[in-house]
């Protein structure tokens, strides 16, 4: 591959950097530090378990409850995926709306963004749990809206507002020359945003979007407060079932380690992407 690049370079008349090789090298120290951190966390949980139990009995209990907690953790991930998908879609529209030239679009977009960005997540969650009806009737058929779905909607709202701000920031970071050039080429406002500005923004939006996703996943245990049976609820069920005080510390540490192992790589990758984009 790199030989081809070397040959092609002079022929085409441009000097090609070697992006593939460089990016591979840039990621490998990241990968090692991520793996090291994960190993360290697993080690800490193991040591805590052995110290609390003085034998290997507690380790067996942790393993016994792992599938049950994993089931809950899968729901955490499902809720976060639901919220990030719909939140991103909503956020793109709300963010573009904030910069829309028409006041009757931009003013409500700004107000909605500020309200839902500054309200505590837990309050929004309570809103959705209490105020979204338990059953809806569409065309004569009754649908039940389950708890986890209402919680997911509760998480989608702050994601929409936060992503709206990310989109607005990225759109405004594009030099005004681009907007003017597009206008002089006869693009409408919508065409300018969709086919000129937004594609360039994606690079800038990616790191904060990844951070937002990590924050979202770390917020999903809030759903346990409103009765969704996710990993936190299941961990407490396990603690009640075992009724063993020695299990408290290892089990909570174990659950924390799951979230850490899921979120830490996201944080590292987003940081390295941010650094890489910042150079250009």
């Amino acid at each position, binding site marked *: 591959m790199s030989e081809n690049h070397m040959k092609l370079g002079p022929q085409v008349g441009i000097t090609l950097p070697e992006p593939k090789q460089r990016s591979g090298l840039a990621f490998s120290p990241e990968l090692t530090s991520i793996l090291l*951190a994960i190993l360290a966390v697993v080690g800490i949980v193991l040591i805590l378990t052995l110290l609390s139990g003085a034998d290997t009995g507690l380790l067996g209990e942790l393993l016994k409850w792992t599938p049950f907690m994993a089931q809950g953790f899968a729901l955490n991930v499902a809720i976060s995926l639901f919220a990030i998908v719909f939140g991103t879609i909503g956020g793109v529209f709300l963010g573009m709306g904030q910069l829309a030239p028409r006041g009757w679009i931009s003013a409500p977009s700004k107000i909605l963004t500020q*309200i839902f960005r*500054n*309200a*505590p*997540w*837990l*309050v929004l969650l*309570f*809103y959705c749990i*209490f*105020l979204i009806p338990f059953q809806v009737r569409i065309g004569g058929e009754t649908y039940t809206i389950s708890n986890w779905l209402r919680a997911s909607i509760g998480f989608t709202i702050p994601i929409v507002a936060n992503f709206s701000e990310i989109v607005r920031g990225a759109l405004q970071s594009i030099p005004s020359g681009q907007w003017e050039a597009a206008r002089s080429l006869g693009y409408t406002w919508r065409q300018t945003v969709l086919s000129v500005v937004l594609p360039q923004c994606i690079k800038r939006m990616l790191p904060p979007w990844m951070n937002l996703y*990590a924050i979202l*996943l*770390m*917020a*999903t*245990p*809030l759903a*346990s*407060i409103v009765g969704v049976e996710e990993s*936190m609820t299941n961990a407490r069920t396990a603690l009640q079932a075992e009724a063993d*005080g020695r299990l*408290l*510390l290892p*089990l*909570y*540490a174990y*659950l*924390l380690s799951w*979230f*850490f192992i899921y*979120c*830490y790589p996201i*944080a590292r990758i987003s940081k390295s992407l941010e650094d890489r984009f910042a150079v250009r």
Partner: protein
Amino acid sequence: MDRIADFFRALNERTGINLPILYDPFDADRFFHGLLTTIELFLISAVVSIAIGLVGAGSLTLPYRVPKAITRCYVAFFRNTPPLIQMYFFFFAIGALTPVRKNDFGFPEPTIDNFQWALITLSLYAGAFNIEIFRSGVEAIHRSIVEAATALGYGKIACFLYVMLPLAWRISLPALCNNMIELLKTTTLAYAIGVPELLYVSNQIWSDNLNTFEMMNVLMVVYLLLVGIVALAMNRWEQALRLPGFGAAAR
């Protein structure tokens, strides 16, 4: 005051919009104390978290290896685990390990109660973010300033305290403002370990009066107002500290 109470009592009778916190002294008192608890939680943990942030940023800036490693681990842990589970971890798991003492009535009482655990968790959680904020503030300082300080005979620690910190503080203020708003919103998590803050007392009030919808809206408005006050205060502070010719260069 009576006139206000009468108005809201009449509002409830005529329209069914029930706001007992404005006419029932018991509920008003509960709500007010919840508000005070939230403000107290926020202010104390804000101060402690800023202190943690400054110490942590200092340890990352100074060339000593062990404090640096400890700070890195602390930041990685608190930034990448859910604050709610941190709170449970501290309150239930570590709280179970702390010694129990007898109170004045002879009942057993934990050495650290739930309010204090909430304070500890919130401070540590927000502190981890503050460290990153101050660190990037320090990094934004131009090297020539540090070199000038060194040339004037400042040591490493003195240079950090008297030259880098005052500049980094000003650069960090906008990000700090965002994090303080985030901290204010996170105080609602104290609900989970039974601290009677705003959300907790509101829950009690709507359970007693069955006015969930009204209380939720009140709660939302109160939190938005609190966030607004924090944002306003931080912006004022930012304006007051602005150095001529420096702010623009930092942006």
